[in-house]
């Protein structure tokens, strides 16, 4: 590590600078053991001393600006010539929209070349001599501060705000109250929650409609291990409030061997092992869509809350706070599945009034 026992003249620096650098080190003070040698002398670039090199730089910059002009012409030409729906195969990007690629690349090139030209110009031709500017303290000099304080005092005194408390207090009161109007105006942003989150479209006798076929679900059509999504009869995609209603009423239907159902109430609320659970996650309301038929677990793809559909929809992993609500179902005379009422509890994410 150390260079002991070497004659100093053998050190590279000593050889190069004839011992000059090493010895001339100025010592400053306790805080800064080495004195500031000041700005190093300016080093000339090749363009500063060789006019031919400078001209080369000039040509490079001009070339970049010219390429930019050509690219803009290319942009306009692409816009006119390429159809909006033309696709091309470009390795390694695959099939891509030809117009988008042509416009983007020509625009990108036109912009980039302007930038590159300007930067090259600055770096090679504009003066690169470093200049030092003085800094001045941000805070004002004491006399400036004194003047401001005096002015402020005079202004405040002339307004008499300190003396006439009645004016001051009523003004503060008025200013404090006037924003209330703005807050009141926000009231009609939406209706009050009331009991809206507690009810869904489900009610006694409503048939379960398969969302894929739009047909009522027959108990005999639900196989063990299958996952079916259902909505209440009467709800149509064209309905004005379809989004709002489906956000609460969406169901998952699975069939589990009745022996495998661990929860007693779940078994009672099912029909021969066909169970209907809310599809809306009790965490923050994502639709649950991943079903593992061997374990009867469902997983919400958003935040990975996992529920056991053979055990009352219990949470077995993830951030959800309570079990999935189950819908009580039965089968009617014609063999179609129907609801025995609304959910017993609110579906979806928990909220303060949920209880």
């Amino acid at each position, binding site marked *: 590590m150390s260079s002991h026992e070497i004659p100093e003249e053998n050190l590279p*620096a000593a050889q190069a600078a004839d011992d000059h650098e090493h010895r001339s080190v100025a010592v400053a003070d306790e805080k800064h*053991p080495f004195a500031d040698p000041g700005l190093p002398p300016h080093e000339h670039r090749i363009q500063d001393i060789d006019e031919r090199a400078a001209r080369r730089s000039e040509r490079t910059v001009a070339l970049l600006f010219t390429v930019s002009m050509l690219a803009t012409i290319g942009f306009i030409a692409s816009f006119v010539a390429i159809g*909006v729906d033309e696709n091309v195969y470009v390795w390694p990007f695959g099939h891509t929209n030809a117009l988008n690629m042509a416009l983007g690349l020509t625009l990108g090139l036109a912009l980039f*070349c302007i930038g590159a030209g300007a930067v090259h110009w*600055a770096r090679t031709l504009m003066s690169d001599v470093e200049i030092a500017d003085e800094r001045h303290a941000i*805070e004002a000099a004491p006399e400036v501060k004194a003047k401001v304080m005096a002015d402020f005092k005079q202004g405040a005194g002339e307004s008499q705000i300190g003396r006439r408390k009645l004016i001051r207090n009523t003004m503060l009161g008025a200013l404090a109250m006037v924003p209330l109007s703005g807050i009141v105006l926000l009231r009609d942003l*939406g209706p009050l929650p009331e009991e809206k989150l507690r009810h869904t479209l489900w009610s006694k006798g409503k048939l379960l409609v398969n969302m894929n076929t739009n047909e009522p679900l027959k108990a005999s059509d639900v196989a063990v291990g299958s996952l079916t999504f259902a909505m209440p009869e009467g709800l149509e995609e064209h309905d004005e409030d379809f989004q709002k209603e489906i956000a609460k009423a969406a169901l998952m239907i699975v069939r589990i061997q009745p022996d495998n159902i661990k929860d007693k109430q779940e078994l009672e609320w099912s029909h021969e092992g066909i169970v209907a659970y809310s599809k809306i996650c009790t965490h923050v309301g994502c639709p649950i869509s991943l079903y593992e038929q061997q374990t009867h677990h469902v997983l919400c793809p958003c935040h990975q809350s996992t529920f056991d559909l053979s055990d009352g929809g219990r949470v077995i992993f993830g951030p*959800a706070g309570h079990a999935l609500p189950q819908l009580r179902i039965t089968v009617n005379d014609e063999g179609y599945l129907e609801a025995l009422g609304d959910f017993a509890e609110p579906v979806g994410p928990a*909220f303060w009034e949920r209880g």
Partner: protein
Amino acid sequence: MSTTSASSHGESRSRGKAPAGERLADWADGRLGIYSLAKANLRKIFPDHWSFMLGEVALYSFIIIILTGVYLTLFFHPSMNEVEYHGSYVPLQGQLMSEAFASTLDISFDVRGGLLIRQIHHWAALVFLAAMFVHMMRVFFTGAFRKPREVNWLFGFLLFVLGMFTGFTGYSLPDDLLSGTGVRFMEGAILSVPIVGTYLSFFLFGGEFPGGDFVARFYSVHILLLPGIMLGLVVAHLILVFYHKHTQFAGPGRTNKNVVGMPLMPVYMAKAGGFFFLVFGVISAIAALVQINPIWAMGPYRPDQVSTGAQPDWYMGFSEGLIRAMPGWEINFAGHTLVLGVFIPLVIFPLVLVAIAAYPFIEAWVTGDKREHHIADRPRNAPTRTAVGVAWITWYVVMLIGGGNDLFATHFHLSINAVTWFVRIAFFVAPVIAFIVTKRICLGLQRRDKDKVLHGRETGIIKRLPHGEFIEVHEPLSQEQLYSLTAHEQHAPAELGPTVDENGVERKIKRKDKLRAKLSKGYFGEDGQIAKPTVEEYKEITSGHGHH
């Protein structure tokens, strides 16, 4: 009059008039006072360092976002009215969707160049947030937030936070399946707020989720309210940068009382102006080549549908991680539900950000330093600060991992439960480890600097001595290097003072002061920094013809 003007303007100008540019400038000066402004700023000096570009990237991407955003408003319909799609994207023809989604499809498939501008807008938003984040870290690690720049630090921090929400309201506008899922998540989070959550949600969405209002409401927030505030903050941020003058790294001739670099005109006009075009050009090329947010592949939003791998844009990822890692705590009492499993993440989300925003004020309190600082610290020379910063980044990254726990599980063939548990533990442990490790590394680097100052640079030249020993030749540093490596200041830890006063009565030391002394010791005590080489050490080592 006539003779002087003729002689001063010379024959080169016809009819003795100033050139048009000068006359225009005179006109403007008479009304706007531009000459005084230009006097102070035309040749303003800016120092050069690659890391000073990061803020510029943020500024330029912000301008790009505004330009492309204005274009998009010409075609986008911020309405949730359900329409049947009849545009040119065949797979979705005949589908019911909101006008917002349909008009976004039109922008992507029927407006020539619309897709490009959409993609530039979205890419620039990602770059904007990333650039702000990295710029903020540069300012943090170099201590450039110290007096007089604390207010500008806060302006920048506000820009970052507002940028996050502008991004969120922006990517929610197309009303596609992915963004709708994100809005649903937000609704669930609002519902968790005790007492008022349900009301807030109903007021925000105009009733039950999703309702028919949120796109129009997000639209005015996204294109008017937030960008308006941000534009004001950007201007204020830049005015302060000019007013304070830029920080610089210590070096020969660079002191706390000057700023060394090149003038705004012409060098930085060309460099910074050119850099705007470089950033714009690169983002355009990315938008041409790399698809972003293909809403047509996700389809219109339906509250009962979802796909796997749903992720927010990256800057929202850490909040996603919080919500995914939190255990599902729920407390039911007296007919009410306290949804801690969602509400706690909702509270931590702003606290994570506030933690880094508040740091400059905590450091100022601990050090008690009231002076102006214009020399940027090397991160190693402020080990505690650097360690705090790295710990914070580690914390943030742990949450980001949590936000993508499903992707980590599928890409690395891990159990989702294991990834989630890792995040839960690492949330508490990883920042502590990062703090300790970073501090050690900083101290090690300080030792290395000291070694370099005292013993010189390792040249890699191996020399054999007459008696057979091999040694490496060390080259002494130049005066410039010696100065740069020792220019930083080192403080002594704050003392509590005597525990008894002059009368021998026990002095009460406030708990606040005790804490401060303890923190100060952590910053500047034995474990907080390596003492700079002193004059004596250097003299002793370098005297006697290099014998040491």
